């Protein structure tokens, strides 16, 4: 099986989806001739023509709004927002329109569409190229929110998202695009080309939405993670020699509460990690759910390990990023409790 970077896996998913279904169209800023600033749509315009893959004006609201109209027509747009930080101008179209259409029209109109966007930091991008806005989508009923952590999942989840009949927010951890990253920014990393999770089968397959994956089994504590933090969690558990069970949520809405509950019932301890700002982050939802489902099994309070409640800084990136040190400290604390 070929190894692929996450970018190659995403590109592959696009090719397969567009080949399988001519209703799939792709557009966004710089995605056409150039193939996207991260190259995730490279080759599509050449292969499928300008009517199915094209550049859009710099107008995120218009991009999403136009995609909603297309989806209502019967197409399946898979659009790119250049950075998740730039989804805000489209926020109204996403939450008041795409998310609501099926419901408010009594099921007459639907908006099957995928809104892809690179998310997260770790690339010295400063505050407007680094944010993790997943909570802002997870709070909105009618949206599904997906975030892969490996090339394998990226391809399978993207194909599942494109085939889904609801609007899907597809967050791509940009720090993982070209290689995994375990939070140790000053050390070199095994590239995807040598990484097991980069084995990506040719052809069509899907990873179902709403199913988490246990990426490391363990008995003593459950770590709930997604995106980049999955790798940080695995690494930290290994380095600290803690028998942690690491769960990669993969889909934030709908959430696989069953897998979560089973694990925490077993371990009795839980740490929740994400890169986003702490207050009202998705971690708060996870803490609530664990408490609701597993309170009587808990031997210590569920801990949150997150980015700080500050804008994502430029030069203090590694002071902001919840790396192995922050997670490690939390793990130690919870194991001692």
């Amino acid at each position, binding site marked *: 099986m070929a190894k692929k970077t996450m970018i190659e896996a995403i590109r592959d998913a696009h090719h397969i989806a567009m080949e399988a279904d001519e209703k799939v*169209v792709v557009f966004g800023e710089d995605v056409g001739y150039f193939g996207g600033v991260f190259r995730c749509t490279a080759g599509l315009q050449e292969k499928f023509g300008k*009517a*199915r893959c094209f550049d859009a*004006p710099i*107008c995120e*609201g*218009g991009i999403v*709004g*136009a*995609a*909603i*109209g*297309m989806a*209502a*027509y*019967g*197409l399946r747009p898979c659009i790119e927002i250049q950075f998740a930080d730039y989804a805000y*101008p489209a926020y*109204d*179209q996403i939450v*008041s*329109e795409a998310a*609501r*259409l*099926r*419901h*408010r*029209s*009594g*099921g*007459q*109109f*639907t908006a099957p569409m995928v809104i892809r966007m690179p998310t997260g930091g770790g690339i010295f991008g400063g505050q407007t190229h680094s944010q993790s806005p997943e909570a802002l989508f997870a709070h909105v*009923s*009618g949206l*599904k929110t997906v975030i892969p952590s490996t090339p394998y999942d990226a391809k399978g989840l993207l194909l599942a998202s494109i085939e*889904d*009949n*609801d609007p899907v927010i597809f967050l791509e951890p940009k720090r993982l695009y070209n290689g995994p990253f375990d939070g140790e920014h000053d050390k070199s990393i095994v590239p995807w080309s040598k990484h097991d999770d980069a084995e990506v089968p040719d052809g069509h397959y899907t990873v179902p939405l*709403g199913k988490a994956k246990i990426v490391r089994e363990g008995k003593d504590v459950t770590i709930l993670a997604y995106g980049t933090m999955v790798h940080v969690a695995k690494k930290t558990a290994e380095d600290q020699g803690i028998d942690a069970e690491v769960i990669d949520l993969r889909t934030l*809405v*709908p*959430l696989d*509460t069953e897998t979560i509950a089973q694990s925490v019932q077993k371990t009795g301890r839980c740490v929740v990690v994400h890169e986003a700002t702490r207050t009202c982050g998705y971690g708060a939802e996870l803490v609530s759910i664990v408490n609701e489902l597993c309170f009587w099994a808990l031997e210590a309070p569920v801990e949150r390990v997150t980015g700080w409640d500050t804008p994502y800084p430029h030069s203090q990136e590694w002071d902001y990023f919840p790396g192995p040190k922050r997670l490690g400290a939390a793990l130690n604390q919870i194991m001692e409790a």
Partner: protein
Amino acid sequence: MTDTGRSYLHVPEPSFRPGDKPTFDEMIIPQAGAVRRPPVDVHPDDIQDLARTIIRVMSSDNEAVGEWAASLTDEEALEGLKDMMRLRTMDARLLRAQRQGKTSFYMQALGEEAVACAFQKALEPGDMNFPTYRQQGLLITSGYPMTSMMNQIFSNSQDPMKGRQLGNLYSSKEHGFFSISGNLATQFVQAVGWAMASAIEGNDRVGVGWIGDGSTAEGDFHAGLVFASTYQPPCVLNIVNNQWAISTYQGIARGNAATFASKGLAFGLPSLRVDGNDYLAVHAVAKWAIERARKRLGPTLIEYVTYREGAHSTSDDPSAYRPKDEADGWPLGDPIERLKGYLIAKGVWSEDRHAQMASQIEDEVAAAQRESEAIGTLLEGDKPGPRDMFEDVYEEMPPHLREQFAQSLKEAGEG
């Protein structure tokens, strides 16, 4: 030039406020028939003047004159008259129903009936409107059952929106009427996207965007024009300038621009301004723009000059911000009276037949209302339930919603 410390912010004001004697003397209104009808493949640059005038067909002598005349047969015009009368009758009855507490809220189209009714008449099955809340005339004209509208107004168990939406926010895919959003302007660019899909698919279906004068200030209006200008999809973009946005007169959104239609010139779009109370003119211009779109010649922007005669909604009382008699002075008259006058002058209609039709329509609407009320109204009779709230959030109800649904049934004592 030195700082004076005295404010000089320019805040546009309507010419008249409550207590003033309103006139519309400043409005420049060309004679009916005065504005030329260019070929549909005209270059936008060659008709820039059409964005600053008013295309009119019906003269003060009740004749249809000029190059835009004769887009309709007499039968069709009569149907149009009937559509507008049905709309006005329904509006009046539902306004009363709201006052009686049978629904929470209502918005009428009083005085601007011609815009939606005549436009719809120029469309074909397969085309799609992306309307605002004041275009119920599209549904009336396209034959959507009045009882379905009323079922939604009363949020009863037959409400096609299942109680989820405010009454006026209709949707009928079958009738080319896209689900209305409560958020203004969002659908203007969606209409353009829908038309882009038509182009991508190689189809000739036309997408129609609708927006109010006030809402043109939103960024999504701009987005719609940018996408329309760039991708040249088969769409018609309609601005209904009824002079008011709740309490705010159109000058606040228009600013220093000459007209709303002239906004289209900045995008290289053919931009026309039309007498919105002239059923024949609206139809002729609509037909022109729809033909352009269908011939793959690109989008057209149209401003309809009309007047919101009633309150913004049942939550509003315009006497607080405009002269009570302002509507009386509106120089473009009443759309129903004008079309009626034209048909009578033409000898195909009479006061008697009109009165007869009015009472027929009154009966028809009353019957529909009885039928609908018999099913239920907002607080009485058969109503949508919790299931209708939980369904259609997603295609399939995910586990967390299934759980919440179960909890809600328990709460309702049914679980």
